[in-house]
């Protein structure tokens, strides 16, 4: 394994070479973990995208603003009162 010091190419010492190889092994493991995390995040993002599309479609079907569904929280009577008034649920 070579390195360049002040423009002159020289051999790395055995200690330097061992250190570099250990760092590279660690970097490869971190890169693999990073890519797995990215893939996982993409899958979750796809799921969220699917849910958002479903809610948008539902809002369109019920003829209410999508925000009414998006902002709904458990216990919030707003959405129920809208639907009650419209469909006598």
């Amino acid at each position, binding site marked *: *394994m*070579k*390195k*360049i*010091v*002040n*423009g002159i*190419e020289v051999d*790395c010492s055995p200690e*330097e*070479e061992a*250190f*570099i190889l250990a*760092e*590279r092994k660690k*970097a*490869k493991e971190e*890169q693999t973990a*990073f890519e797995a995390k*990215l893939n996982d995040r993409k899958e979750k993002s796809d799921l969220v995208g699917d849910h958002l599309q479903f809610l948008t479609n539902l809002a369109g079907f019920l003829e209410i603003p999508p925000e009414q569904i998006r902002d709904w929280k458990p216990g919030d009577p707003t959405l129920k009162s809208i639907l009650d008034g419209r469909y006598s649920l």
Partner: protein
Amino acid sequence: MSYLGKISKGSLYTSSGSNYVEQSVGTNDQALVADSAQSSGLNYSTLSGGGSYELISTVTASGVASVEFTDLTSAYSAYEVWFQNTGSASPRLRLRTSTNNGSSYDSGASDYAYVGNHILQSSSRVFASTGASGIIFSLADGSALLGQGEMRLTIFRPSDTVYTTVFWNSKFWLSTIANSYMMGVGRRLSAADVDAIQFTYTDASNITGIFKLYGVSAS
């Protein structure tokens, strides 16, 4: 004009204040400057090169594990490194510093801190660390970038016993038409006299590129 044959090629006639005196021409590439010590008030001399900004070394690396510059001294208050990646991709470049002139480079897990911003065509992303084993100049996904990376890095006051600070600007192509620009600042988290620097890639690849080390004179 036969009397011109008695004077040398390139000679000038000037004044000493009371008489005309001959100023002989200098050697190639010398310039005529004012010099009150001469009877002519002029002298030819070699101009000292680039003022306060001096090219110290050019290194063309081809598949080596690291590129190092030692013997950084207080003769320069700052150093500048220009890096041009000539590989097919631009992995993450990392800087480490030494206080024993390159016998070893600090690589502890909390030796450095840095923060950078990666500006893309339609967004930007911050990357940072408050405890790293080196100063890293690009995002974790930098390995996906195409080649033609270029960076300008300034290292301030390395010889002072302070936290040595670096600034950088760099660009990489994301594609043949899309730009990617990164900038940031980092420092060694210890007040020490830094006398050598080392560049490596954070992944398993070797460095292929051109480094130019400049010194900015302290005086």
